[in-house]
């Protein structure tokens, strides 16, 4: 009889039994998702604060009662600021009322005649109304409004300066008014263009070097999701040990032994099934992580698959070992749960005070991690997901996992009894 076909028959049966257990599915698939999401979100704020990744945003109303070009420029400048979340309103009265009701932190009002005033070189001002209970933001909003108005202010100054210069020089004294306005506009436009160029390409640049690359904000889900995936893969260990005893207690093992199945099929069939469950678990977690939380998967899906298969093999053999060593199914389940909770923490796969797993910092956890399969699986995932790893570069981690699997299997098979 075909060894592979009978082995796969057992694999298929084991998958049906395992995937039909809703409680187990919740533990294997939903809990790691919930835990990694909660842990990431709860610690993301602290990380962002530490790295300065999050900008302050202030919600304001902007009312432009001016009908000229300068009022429109200031309104556009305010809307383009990332620190401001702007909602435009038609009247200053409405803005005043709604800020008073606490809808937004402040209102910035561009009064009627703002452009005409600049044209006439009369003093003009923006009006800022701040929610009385958020007075702490008053200085911030006034500063931002001044910053938005500064180009217009410069432009007004330039226009007045140009006029004064042309007037005092007397070069356009007899020229028609259209020509005078055209020369003023051309002069101011040329100077403003130069100023804009200087703003874009400052003659003196200040270079700064930060400890953290500012280009992309750090995402803690990248650290927590693989750690929880590894941790919860080992929750299968208790189930495997318990199933080992259940088969014996309920007599199905006797029925398998009475069939023409080889003993290799009886052992290998469930192990293949549990490897598949671990791979499905990782695919689900990383898939949801990538889809919903922008989890970075790296460039090597084969690399992820190889690490997952090796992890699945370790979990299967560990479960078999636990089943063989435990006296009862309940004992196997309890030991499995204990192992699943304790080993991830002492192997240092979770980030401590930062984004990197604790084992990378060395120390006790780093040393202990070398002797625990969790660390090698987590490191394999980390290498692939940070873009450093391919199938070839994770071979060391896969090799360590296979060594663990062989050790577990050899010990288990020496103690395994078929009668």
């Amino acid at each position, binding site marked *: *009889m*075909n060894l592979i*076909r*009978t082995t796969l*028959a*057992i694999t*298929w*049966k084991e998958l*049906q*039994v395992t995937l*039909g*257990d809703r409680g187990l599915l919740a533990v294997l698939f939903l809990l790691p998702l919930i835990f990694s999401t909660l842990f990431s979100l709860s610690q993301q704020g602290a990380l962002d604060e530490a790295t300065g990744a999050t900008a302050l945003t202030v919600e304001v109303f902007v009312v432009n009662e001016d009908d000229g070009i300068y009022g429109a420029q200031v309104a556009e400048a305010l809307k383009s600021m990332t620190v401001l979340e702007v909602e435009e309103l038609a009247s200053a009265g409405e803005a005043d009322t709604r800020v008073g009701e606490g809808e937004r932190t402040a209102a910035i009002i561009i009064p009627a005649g703002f452009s005409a005033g600049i044209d006439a070189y009369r003093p003009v001002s923006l009006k800022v109304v701040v929610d009385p209970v958020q007075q702490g933001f008053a200085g911030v909003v006034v500063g931002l409004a001044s910053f938005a108005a500064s180009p217009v202010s410069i432009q007004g100054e330039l226009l007045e300066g140009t006029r004064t210069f042309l007037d005092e020089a007397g070069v356009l004294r007899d020229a028609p008014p259209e020509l005078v306005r055209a020369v003023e506009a051309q002069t101011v436009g040329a100077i403003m263009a130069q100023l804009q160029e200087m703003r874009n390409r400052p003659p003196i640049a200040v270079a700064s070097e930060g400890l953290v690359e500012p280009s992309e904000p750090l995402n803690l889900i990248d650290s927590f999701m693989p750690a929880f995936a590894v941790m919860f893969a080992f929750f299968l260990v208790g189930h495997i040990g318990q199933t080992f005893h259940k088969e014996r*207690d*309920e*007599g*199905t093992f*006797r*029925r*398998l*032994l*009475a*069939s*023409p*199945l080889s003993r290799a099929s009886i052992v290998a069939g469930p192990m293949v099934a549990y490897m598949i469950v671990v791979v499905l678990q990782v695919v689900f977690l990383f898939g949801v992580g990538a889809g919903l939380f922008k989890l970075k998967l790296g460039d090597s899906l084969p690399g992820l698959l190889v690490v997952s298969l090796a992890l699945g093999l370790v979990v299967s053999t560990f479960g078999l070992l636990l089943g063989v060593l435990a006296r009862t199914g309940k004992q196997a389940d309890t030991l499995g749960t204990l192992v699943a909770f304790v080993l991830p923490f002492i192997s240092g796969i979770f980030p401590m005070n930062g984004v990197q797993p604790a084992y990378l910092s060395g120390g006790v956890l780093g040393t202990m991690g070398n002797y625990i399969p969790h660390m090698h699986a987590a490191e394999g995932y980390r290498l692939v997901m940070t873009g450093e790893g391919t199938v070839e570069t994770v071979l060391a981690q896969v090799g360590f996992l296979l060594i663990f699997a062989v050790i577990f299997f050899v010990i288990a098979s020496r103690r395994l009894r078929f*009668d």
Partner: protein
Amino acid sequence: MPHILEADKLVKKYGDLAAVDGISFDVEEGEVFGLLGPNGAGKTTTISMLTGVLEPTSGTARIGGHDILTEPKAVKQINGLVPQDLALYPTLSARTNLQFFGRIYGLRGKALSERVEDVLRVVALTERANDPIEKYSGGMKRRINIAAGLVHQPRLLFLDEPTVGVDPQSRNHIFESVLQLNRDRGMSIIYTSHYMEEVELLCNRVAIVDQGRIIAMDTIRNLIGMLGGGVIQIGLERVDDEMLAAISALPAVTGASRVAPPAPATAPEEGPAVLAPPGAPEPTLVKIESKRSQDALVQVIGCLNERDVAFTSIEIFEPNLESVFLHLTGKKLRE
């Protein structure tokens, strides 16, 4: 008739304890053969060795012409096993269970589907085939347990106490299925039980097993014929050799002997379970074999009255396998 099974001095030892101690028997093709004995007699261990679950310490057997030690795969293809436990996957449906047990015997595709539907018909559970086993009643589970042993069409079916914990209706259905499999399909069956009524109803021949040995093996008619009449078991206040001789000499009695009393129902420290006054001899069980139980009983009571000996219990065993077992071992099947 050719033999489907020939067991030759099978022994299974666990340390110094011999669970099976040199059992030999033959089963003919198409026969329903019973292994009757109390719990712990060695019936299940014998079946486990014959089905390849356990390796014999010594001895061997041939099934369908194949040696169980040297050709286990061929033997396993001939055998079907219905274990005493409900050896099923409770969360899976009956159909899925049967498909799995068919696949491990190499069945695939249409042949597998046909076999599954066939055995579902045999146990009359086609309509509930897609329900998970865990939702079945105890009797239905037992029936699917039997179906799982039949799915690959074995020539020799081992039924190990298949009616334990089963309601009367399902028990009758199991009996009908066994008889039908034997009658209509010519299937050879080895049926173990400690219920003598089942063995009497189903089996052509019976081996009575006790303490790992076969103590008698024949047709049921011949085994019962060994006794000639019934057996009376009587508990006496006291007994001595003279009294035993007097009872043995009664015309309707063919023999009388002492039987070791069963363990007390209550431990001494739990309270007074003693019927006799302090200082009186321990009550003693006497087994009386007779040609006709009723005549013998009247004579025995008369004999006791003459000697002023009170009796504490009386049980009459009409000739059946139970009384045969009592005759052979001095104890009841279900003690």
